[in-house]
């Protein structure tokens, strides 16, 4: 058997395992094994590659040295970050990993274009794509990470319409550089493409509001797959092309799911700016007229008398890191034979499935998490709804007000419940910046304070009332 054949067989096996891995990741029962299978497939592909070169041209000592140094440093930092990062900051972590994948593709393309001469037109084309997509993925992901981490806010000047003009002109510059690169690969053209693509990534991501971040992250994830496939064209590796294409396609599907959850098109997420900038013109703004604020004690008394409580978690819960305290409160209520469940909106939090991860960390039983379509008919039967750091996903405007920018977005019908408590730090608007009609309703009471603090006060109040004592 010759070496090329053996490597092809190993690669084929890797692709099979990767595909099975992605497939398994979409089912709860098999997800963990599937993830490990995918990791094993990646390991296998490296073995296949090293084996091939050892059997043919050989690997010089110097190459080994650089391989070991690069992989040790990268793996070490990756492993440390993965172990240390709290579950609440998962969105920014994924964004950072994603950006590094894009950076890797960009560097591969740069290495080939600068130091390996005699490329074919096809290689030139794939190098240009790899640089373009890699740079956008990198800068876009880093901006997304900085915004999620709170290092960057959405500057108001980016909401101006002029930004489209700027972005389009940068896009045209990259296109010119792109086409020039196909004819001659002189270094100034390459750097022009690198810089203009990087700036384009920033220019497109910066104006997007925090609430749209789930969509942006999954789209960037898809880009990083495309970047990997383009790198596959550059080094002529079938495995890279298949794996990259699979990730790219999978990312697109997730993006579509997210867009559906928000009832917005991908176009309006990418180019529409934040929702607040639109609401100034429509009826979305306006003052609150009928706010009822109440103390933690009143909230505890109402909870004690309830039979059925639905909890609606949102991004505020993650910020306050209150998931464990919330679980404690729910446990006390359950001991008093009060039915507790959690209503999970598809885009609650800053990443698809963010709330599920947080609540799982706090040991909330999987069966208590209910999806929007399943839980919505339950709200009229609920005595108390606790809204924790969620805002836009419980805004009744989305169903009642045709002029609202939120109109048409699927929301949780919390206002149908007998009593609604909204635990919130202040009267500030949600990420969309739109007034929430829920707060004005007579059956809604506001409990002001940090989610974690309010919940621990609530817990001691409940204990004083003798709830859950038996």
């Amino acid at each position, binding site marked *: 058997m010759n070496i090329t054949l053996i490597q092809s067989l190993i690669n084929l096996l890797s692709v099979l395992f990767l*595909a099975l*891995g*992605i*497939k398994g*990741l*979409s*089912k*709860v029962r098999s997800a963990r094994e599937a993830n490990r299978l995918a990791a094993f497939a990646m390991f296998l592909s490296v073995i296949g*590659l090293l084996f091939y*070169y050892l059997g043919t041209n050989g*690997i010089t000592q*110097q*190459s080994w040295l*650089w391989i070991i140094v*690069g*992989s040790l440093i990268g*793996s070490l930092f*990756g*492993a440390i*970050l*993965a*172990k240390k990062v709290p*579950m609440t900051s*998962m969105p920014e972590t*994924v964004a950072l*990993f*994603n950006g*590094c*994948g894009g950076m*890797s593709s960009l560097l*591969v393309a*740069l290495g080939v274009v600068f*130091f390996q001469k005699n490329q074919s037109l*096809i290689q030139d084309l794939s190098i240009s794509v790899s640089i373009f997509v890699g740079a956008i993925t990198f800068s876009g992901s880093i901006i997304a990470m900085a915004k999620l981490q709170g290092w960057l806010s959405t500057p108001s000047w980016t909401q101006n319409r002029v930004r489209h003009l700027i972005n389009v002109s940068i896009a045209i510059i990259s296109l010119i550089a792109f086409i020039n690169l196909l004819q001659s690969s002189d270094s100034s053209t390459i750097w022009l493409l690198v810089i203009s693509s990087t700036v384009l990534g920033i220019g497109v991501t910066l104006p997007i509001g925090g609430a749209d971040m789930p969509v942006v992250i999954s789209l960037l*994830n898809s880009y990083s797959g495309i*970047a*990997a*496939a383009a*790198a596959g064209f550059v080094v*002529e*590796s*079938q495995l*890279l*092309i298949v*794996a*990259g294409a*699979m*990730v790219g*396609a*999978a990312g697109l*599907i*997730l993006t579509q*799911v997210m867009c559906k959850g928000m009832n917005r098109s991908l176009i309006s997420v990418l180019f529409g700016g934040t929702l607040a900038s639109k609401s100034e013109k429509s009826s979305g703004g306006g003052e609150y007229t009928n706010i009822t604020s109440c103390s933690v004690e009143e909230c505890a008394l109402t909870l004690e008398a309830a039979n059925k409580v639905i909890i609606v978690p949102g991004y505020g819960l993650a910020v306050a890191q209150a998931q464990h305290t919330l679980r404690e409160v729910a446990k006390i209520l359950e001991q008093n034979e009060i039915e507790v469940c959690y209503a999970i909106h598809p885009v609650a939090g800053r990443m698809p*499935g963010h709330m*599920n991860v947080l609540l*799982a960390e706090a*040991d909330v*039983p999987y*069966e208590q998490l209910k*999806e929007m379509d399943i839980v919505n008919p339950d709200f009229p039967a609920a005595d108390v709804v606790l809204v924790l750091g969620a805002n836009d996903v419980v805004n009744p405007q989305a169903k009642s007000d045709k002029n609202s920018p939120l109109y048409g977005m699927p929301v949780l019908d919390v206002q149908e419940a007998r009593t609604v408590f909204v635990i919130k730090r202040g009267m500030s608007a949600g990420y969309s910046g739109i007034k929430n009609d829920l707060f004005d309703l007579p059956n809604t009471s506001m409990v002001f304070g940090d989610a974690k603090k309010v919940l621990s006060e609530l817990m001691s109040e409940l204990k004083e009332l003798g709830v859950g004592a038996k």
Partner: protein
Amino acid sequence: MDFAQAFWILLLGSLLGLELIGKVPPTLHTPLMSGANAISGITMLAALTLIIQAKNNLPLLLIGSISLGFALFNVVGGFFVTDRMLAMFNRKPSKNSKLK
């Protein structure tokens, strides 16, 4: 590998990706995304190839090594973090069955 052949592979790979992820429960959105993200670090193979083919070209060795580092940061971190999340999901059924 000629261009047409590579394009076929790209096409079939994309179709496979679209086909594989039909219906995903919301719980798995985050892990699926970070798992797929880890797989996109497969560019580490391209970086490896670059280093091996570089022979004694120092700048190319350096750029390949940095690229490899970034890719492995993505791969190792991505798979670990996904495993951490999935471990939390798996914990539940066993605990519940014990209670019952």
